[in-house]
C-alpha cells in the first residue's frame, strides 16, 4: 500500500488534538523551519513540485514568489477552506481530523512569505470542521505555537478564522478576499493580482487547506522525497473525494500517479452493484465529464487535461448507467445559475439562460436547435469573464452535450421528460 501523508492519523480517535499530533511527529517541521531562511522554505516547496490542490494546480512555491520584492506592506496568508466545488469534501476531513497539520503548515508558509497574519476562510456550512479547527487554534496559542515570539524564534503569527455564508463564489480566490474584507463576495478584476494587491489592499497569498497541510511534510522529509511520490510535474499524494455510484465512496489518499480507473475500481470497489460506468467527472463539477474509455489517465495535473478536462479539486463524481446525462447537466446548470455572483454580464445572463434551456430539454420540451444554442452560448461566454467561474460552468455544458449528444437528441425526439432510472 502506498504511503499515507495526509490521512496517516485519520484512524486515531483523538487525531485532532495537539497532544496526539505532537506524539506522531507534529510541529517538528516547524522547529526545523524556524531555523531556515524564508527563501529556503520557498525553494524547498518549489523543488517538491507541490501544486495547488484547490483547483487551479498552480505551483505553490512559484505563487509565493509573486509577492513584490522589497515590498514593506503587511502580507497576508489566506487559507481557502471554502471547499464549495460540488463533489469535493477532502478539506473537511483534514480540518476535522488533522487541523494541526494545517496550522503548522500555515506557520511555516507564513514564515516563507513574511506574513504575520493569516486567515482561514471556512465554508459556512462547515460547522464541525470550524469547531475542531477553532479548538486546535486555541490549543496552538496556549502552547506558544501561535501569537508573539513563536517558540522563542522572535517571529509572530496570528490566525483568524472567518466563516463564510454559503456562496460558492466565495471560494474563488478574489471573491473570497472581497468577502473576507466584509464586502459582497464579488471576484476582483485582475490585474492587480492578490500577491500584489490582495486582502485589504495588501500582498496576499491564497492557498488551499490541503496544499498548506502538505508543507510540514515537505519540510520534514525533504523536497526530493515529496517530488518522488508523484509525476515529473507534480509531487506528492493527494486526497481524492470520490462520490457517486461506486461501492465505497469517500476520501482516498493516493499518489498523483494513480489512474482514474484505479481510483474507481481498486480504491473504491468499482461501480455499485456491478453496473456499467456511464461517465465520470474527475475534478469537481467544473471539470469536463469523461467517458468510460477515457479513464486510463494519471490523476495528476496533466492527466485529465490530456482528455480536455481538469484535475480541479480532485472531486471524482462517478455516474453509472442509471443516470440521465441531460438531467445531470440540468442539475449542474441549476447550480451554476444559482451560484453565479452576477457581477459580469456573460456569466450572469447565460448561466440562467442555459439552465432554462436544459430544464426545458429535461421536461421534454426541447427543440433540436437548443443543443447548438447551448454550445454556442457557452463558447461565446467562455474566457470573457472576470473570474474562472464561468469557464468552470462551460466545462460541463460543452462536454456533457458533445460526449452524450445522441442521448440529448433522443430525448428531444421523444418529446418526453428525461428521468434517471431508479437503482434496482
Amino acid at each position, binding site marked *: 500500500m502506498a504511503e499515507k501523508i495526509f490521512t496517516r492519523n485519520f484512524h486515531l480517535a483523538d487525531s485532532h488534538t495537539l497532544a496526539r499530533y505532537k506524539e506522531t511527529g507534529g510541529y517538528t517541521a516547524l522547529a526545523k523551519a524556524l531555523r531556515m531562511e524564508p527563501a529556503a522554505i520557498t525553494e524547498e516547496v518549489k523543488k517538491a513540485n507541490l501544486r495547488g490542490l484547490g483547483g487551479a494546480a498552480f505551483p505553490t512555491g512559484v505563487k509565493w514568489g509573486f509577492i513584490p520584492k522589497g515590498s514593506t506592506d503587511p502580507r497576508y496568508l489566506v487559507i481557502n477552506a471554502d471547499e464549495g466545488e460540488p463533489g469535493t469534501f477532502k478539506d473537511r476531513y483534514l480540518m476535522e481530523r488533522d487541523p494541526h497539520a494545517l496550522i503548522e503548515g500555515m506557520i511555516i508558509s507564513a514564515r516563507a512569505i513574511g506574513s504575520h497574519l493569516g486567515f482561514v476562510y471556512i465554508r459556512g456550512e462547515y460547522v464541525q470542521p470550524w469547531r475542531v479547527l477553532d479548538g486546535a487554534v486555541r490549543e496552538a496559542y496556549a502552547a506558544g505555537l501561535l501569537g508573539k515570539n513563536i517558540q522563542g524564534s522572535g517571529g509572530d503569527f496570528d490566525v483568524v478564522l472567518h466563516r463564510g455564508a454559503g*456562496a460558492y*463564489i466565495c471560494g474563488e480566490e478574489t471573491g473570497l478576499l472581497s468577502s473576507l474584507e466584509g464586502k*459582497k463576495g464579488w471576484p476582483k*478584476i485582475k*490585474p492587480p493580482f492578490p500577491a500584489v494587491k490582495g486582502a485589504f489592499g495588501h500582498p496576499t497569498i491564497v492557498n488551499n487547506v490541503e496544499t498548506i497541510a502538505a508543507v510540514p511534510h515537505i519540510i520534514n522529509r525533504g523536497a526530493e522525497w515529496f517530488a518522488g511520490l508523484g509525476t515529473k510535474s507534480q509531487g506528492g499524494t493527494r486526497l481524492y473525494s470520490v462520490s457517486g455510484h461506486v461501492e465505497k465512496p469517500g476520501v482516498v489518499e493516493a499518489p498523483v500517479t494513480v489512474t482514474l480507473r484505479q481510483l474507481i475500481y481498486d480504491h473504491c470497489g468499482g461501480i455499485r452493484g456491478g453496473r456499467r460506468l456511464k461517465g465520470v467527472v474527475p475534478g469537481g463539477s467544473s471539470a469536463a465529464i469523461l467517458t468510460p474509455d477515457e479513464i486510463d489517465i494519471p490523476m495528476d495535473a496533466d492527466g485529465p487535461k490530456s482528455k480536455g478536462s481538469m484535475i480541479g479539486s480532485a472531486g471524482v463524481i462517478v455516474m453509472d448507467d442509471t443516470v440521465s446525462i441531460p438531467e445531470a447537466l440540468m442539475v449542474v446548470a441549476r447550480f451554476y*445559475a*444559482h*451560484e*453565479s*455572483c*452576477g*457581477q*459580469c*454580464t*456573460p456569466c*450572469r*445572463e*447565460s*448561466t*440562467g*439562460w442555459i439552465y*432554462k*434551456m436544459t430544464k*426545458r430539454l429535461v421536461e421534454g420540451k426541447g427543440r433540436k*436547435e437548443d443543443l447548438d*444554442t447551448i454550445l454556442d452560448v457557452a463558447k*461565446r*461566454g467562455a*474566457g*470573457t*469573464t*472576470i473570474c474562472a467561474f464561468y469557464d468552470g460552468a462551460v466545462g460541463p455544458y460543452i462536454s456533457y452535450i458533445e460526449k452524450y449528444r445522441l442521448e440529448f437528441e433522443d430525448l428531444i425526439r421523444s418529446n418526453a421528460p428525461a428521468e434517471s432510472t431508479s437503482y434496482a
Partner: protein
Amino acid sequence: MPKLTVNGKAIEVPEGTNLIEAARIAGVEVPHYCYHPALSIAGQCRLCMVDIEKVPRPQIACNTQAAEGMVVETETPRVKDTRRSMMEFHLINHPLDCPVCDQAGECFLQIYYMQHGLYDPRMIDEKVHKPKAVPLGPHVILDAERCILCSRCVRYCDEVTHTGELGIFHRGDHSEIGLFPGKVLENKYSGNVIDICPVGALTDRDFRFKVRVWYLDTTKSVCNGCARGCNIEVHTNKHRPHHNEGRRVARLKPRFNAEVNTWWICDAGRYGFPWIDDKSRLLHPQHRAGSQGTDVSWDRALQEMVTVLGRYPAAEIGMLASPQMSNEDLWAVKRLADHLGVKNLDFRVPPAVPGDEDDFLIRADKNPNTRGAELCGIAPGPGGLDAVGMLRAAREKRLKLLWIFHHDLGASAWPEAEVQAALDGVEVAIFQGTNANDVSARAHLVLPSAAYVERDGTFTNFQGRVQRFRTAVPPLGQAWPDWMILSFIGKALGFQDPVCTAERAEQVFNALAADVPAFAGLTYRAMGDTGAMVKA
C-alpha cells in the same frame, strides 16, 4: 507618455491612460456600459473588449493601460463577434419595452444593438422578472428589469457622493439594484444617477412620461442656481407643446466642464427650473394706480420710465440691481446709473435663510453672478446709499424712486414690515423681473424680464470664470432681456453710450470688456463652451 497605435493610428497618451480613453484620443469609440471616467473601474459589462497584438484573447479596454508599442485593434472580426455576444447577453432578460420606456431615444441598449448587435434573438424562455417602478427617492425611479447591472449608480453613490444608498442584491440573473435598508436616495446630487444610467433602469420622476426625448432641442447654458455656475444643457420641448402641459423647458442636464462641475449638477439646480414656465411669469409691462394694475405697451412703459426718471434728482433715485442678472444686464444698469448720476446703487440683499453649502459643488451664495456684479461696479457711488440705506431712506421718504430688479424682498432677511414701509414710502416703485412677487404686486410700474433661457448672456462664477448661456426658447409674452430694457430707456433718455445702441447681448459684453479691465480681452468666441477667467 506611451506611444501606441489604435486601429493603425499612432497616438501618444499620458501614463496610466486606459484603452477606452486612448481610443477616444485616436478618435475611436469603444462601446462600453460600466466604464465611466469619474468612477472606479468595474470591468463588469465586458463590452469594451479590444484586441491587443500578442495577447491571445480580447481584453477589456477599461482595465488595460496603454503601454509603449501596444497595437490595439477595436474592429477585428473576433472583437465584433464578442461585442455581438455581449449585446445578446445584456438583452436576453431585458423586457424590450422601448415603446413605454422613457429612455428610448437615448438608450445605449438601443444604440449599441443597432451598432454592434443586430443578431437574431434566440431566447424563447421566460425572462427573469424583477421589481418595476420602484421609487428610490424623491427624484429617481427604478425599473430593475431594464437594469443591466453596470453598477455605475452604486459606484457613484459610494465614490462621488459618499452616501452609499445603493447596492446590488441577490445573485446571478436575479441580481438587482436596490436601496440598503433604511436608506432613501435623497442626497443632494441624486439626479446624476439618472444621467449615468446607460439604460432605462433609473429614470427621472420629474421628467418621465412628459416628452419623448427625440422631440427635445438642446441648448448649452449655465445653471443660475448658485455661484458655481455648473454647465448645463437646457432641453426644451418646442414641437409638442401638448406633451408637457405647455412647459417649454423639459429638463436640465449637466454638461461637462472640468474646471467647474465635471460631470455633475446638484438636484436643486437640476429641478430648479419650473419658474421659467410658471403662471407667475410677468408677460406684459404693467402700470398700477392704487390696487388696480393694467397691462400697457412697451412704448407707454418706456415713456413713463423717461418721465419718472426725469422727475426726481439723482439723489432721490435708488437702483437695486440683482446678482441674478447677467454681466450684460449689470453693465447696462451701471452705465444708466452713471448717465443719470445715480449713486444709490447696490445689488446685495441678504436671504432670509442662509444658503446651504458643501465641499463639492453647492455654494451658499444662491446667485449666479455676484462676482460679475462686483466687477461691473454695482456699488454705491461717493456719498450714495447701499441697499439697507436705500430702504431706510425710502421709509423716511428721502428716496422718491426705487427701481428694484428681480429681488423678492419678501423672501429676504429684512423684516417684512420694513420692506413694505419702504415700498409704500416712495412715490414711484419700479419692479423689473421675470416673476410676480411681493415687490411686483406693490410696484407702480412693472417691466417684464426674459428668463436666462430666453436670451443670451454671461455669468461670472465665484471662481471668476465668465460663462455663456444661450437662447433656448423665445421670451414669454412681451418680456425682454434686462439689458435691452435698459438700453431702450437709455436711448429714450438720449444717452450716448454703446449700451444704448446695442442690438445683441454680445455688443453689450464687448462694451463691458472695453471699459472694465477684469473683462479686457474676453469675447463670446474666446469663452467658447466652457468659459474663460477674468483677469485677477
